[in-house]
């Protein structure tokens, strides 16, 4: 694997430093374990964050509107990628955090749509398919790699993140926006699916969707929403970059239970990494 790594019998050079073979092996084991942990933990926490902030728009095909879904989803999606990009880029120079977030989220969502919404609650996949969010994550990682700058990633990556969400999902959504007539009314196929498959405790009026109360600039609601979303994404990216920084700070406090634990004082060497 390239000139980055040179080897001999007892040791190996990784990124300009000689490592014993044992340590290099341990380090690789550590890599694998941590990658597994991060993938699982990010999937868990990011999915929780996602479903409880913008989940309803993602659960149902008749919630995926041109205003709130397009605006709110990228803004709330930006949190974990930005925070984790700080850690993985600043500390390890790895431009993978946003992609890991989106991939983990996508897999977590598909598993529960299948197990929960489809198998447990009987909804067809045509009603409960999830949006795709990976494109935005890829762009964030690639822009961070090429620019090496949080600010540029916020501006270019953040704006792209907001702008790409709707067009990336349009090929999935368009079949559900065909017009049809039901009970002498014009509805989209998606509206009708939401009407036909009863959500007993989530009636129609709970849909937080574009109600046509605003001027929609000649039907360009989605474009306006995506642009606004991209703008907020820039700000949210920077906010979460710093939140990631705060969470990555290795702070420690003296253990006041040490004597209770039966440990002797080690003197002044209490300072930690």
């Amino acid at each position, binding site marked *: *694997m390239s000139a*980055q790594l040179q080897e001999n019998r007892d040791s190996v050079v*990784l*990124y*300009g*430093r000689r490592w014993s073979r044992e340590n*290099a092996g341990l*380090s690789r084991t*550590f*890599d694998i374990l941590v990658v597994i942990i991060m993938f699982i933990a990010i999937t868990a926490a990011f999915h929780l964050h996602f479903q409880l902030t913008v989940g309803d728009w993602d659960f149902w095909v008749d919630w*995926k*509107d*041109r205003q709130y879904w397009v605006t709110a989803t990228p803004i709330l999606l930006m949190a974990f990628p930005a925070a984790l990009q700080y850690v993985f880029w600043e500390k*390890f120079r*790895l431009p*993978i955090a946003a*992609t890991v977030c989106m*991939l983990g989220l*996508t897999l977590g969502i*598909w598993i529960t749509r299948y197990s929960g919404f489809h*198998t447990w*609650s*009987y909804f067809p*996949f*045509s009603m409960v398919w*999830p949006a*795709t969010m*990976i*494109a935005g*994550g*890829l*762009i964030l*990682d*690639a822009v961070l790699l090429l620019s090496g700058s949080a600010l540029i990633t916020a501006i270019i990556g953040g704006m792209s993140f907001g702008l*790409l969400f709707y*067009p*990336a999902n*349009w*090929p*999935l959504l368009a*079949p559900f*926006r*065909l*017009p*049809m007539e039901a*009970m*002498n*009314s014009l509805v989209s*196929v*998606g*509206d009708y*699916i939401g009407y*036909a498959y*009863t959500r*007993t405790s989530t*009636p*129609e*009026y709970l849909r937080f969707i*574009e*109600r046509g109360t605003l001027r929609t600039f000649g039907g360009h609601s989605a474009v306006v929403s995506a642009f606004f979303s991209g703008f907020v994404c820039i700000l949210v990216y920077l906010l979460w970059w710093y939140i990631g920084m705060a969470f990555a700070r290795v702070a420690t406090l003296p253990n006041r239970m040490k004597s209770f634990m039966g440990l002797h004082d080690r003197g002044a060497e209490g300072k930690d990494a």
Partner: protein
Amino acid sequence: MRPSRRVSGLLLGLLALIAASEVAAHGERNQEPFLRMRTAHFYDVTWSTDKVKVNEDVVIEGKFRLFEDWPANLPEPDVAFLGNGTPGPVFVRTESWLNGQPAIQSVPLKIDRDYAFKTVLKGRIPGDHHVHPMVNVEGAGPLMGPGSWVQVAGRASDFVLPLTTLDGTKIDNLETWGVSSVVGWHSVWIVIAILWLVWWTRRPLLIPRLVAIDEGREKLLISRADLAAGAVLIVLTVSVVVIGFVWAENTFPRTIPLQGGRAVVKPLPRTEAPVDVTVERATYDVPGRSMQIRASVTNHGGRPIQFGEFATSGLRFVNRELPAAMATVSATYPKELVPPAGLKLSDSAPLAPGETRSILFDMTDAAWETERLTSLLNDPDNRVGGLLFCFDDQGGRIIANVSGPIVPIFKDLVAHQGMTH
């Protein structure tokens, strides 16, 4: 999908079928009595059948009155939706109408007015399902009408929901419409993401890179090939998005946004109720499972009337001595909702035009307990509410509101009340 998940999916699907065959009621019994006694009173409810095959229709029709004495702690029904209290989408709703208007969207409703509804449900998941008419009121939640068991027979896999869109597209089955496209596009993105992650994770990742940065050798961490890969990724990502968008625009040139408006439905014409009921004292005998309402009733109409039914919370206490009232209970109406003892009166003589009389209405049945209306005692607002169905000598029906405070009795004080059965 991996084979193991497919196997587990089949297993879960099988279990779904087993479980679906013995579905219970929906938790309406644990709703507070004020929600059930003083919000939406359903009446004249019919179910077209109690047994359908998958893909066959069951029609539920009836009326409901939004009660005059609407609880002050609930928002008024300014936004409401005609739902159906079924265990999720075991049926699909193909039509629903409120006073002849489509009920596909939410509507504002008016208190102390009546509405006629009709819902058409198509059998989808086999099993015995409890089917209620229901009105969802924003902030108040689901308000359920009476429930009846409907059996769906057949195989779930036989269900189809075909339709034709206005641009002529024929959809064979709405259950699967568009799903292959969704799975395809997700797969494309998942593959690209995995390739990107493999590109990076194949190399020593964490400690060596952390140390390299700590020790000032970070230039070794990103190669020219990495940068090139990043540039390719951007071009690839944007290209796939553009290609997908253009494909969708060309394939589906005529689309519309979600239709999120509010409909308007006029209530049924108001019929002046020429019967006035003023509750004097209402009691609930806890151990005796007996509700008694002493009310002063005035007949403002031109014909003598008799009292045929007191309806509350989906229960119908029918006066078995009055044929006109008994005629309204069809043979197929759920038996558990028509308590056998029915409605008993202290004085069953017809109330003459212009007459005012104090009458004791007695409703005694274990249904109070099984329907958990005894938890009335836990309510912070102890009031009883219901509809009194009066019949004149020509079979005409007058529906009067009955509401007032109610007092629990913990000992057998019936004799003390002077009740004569």
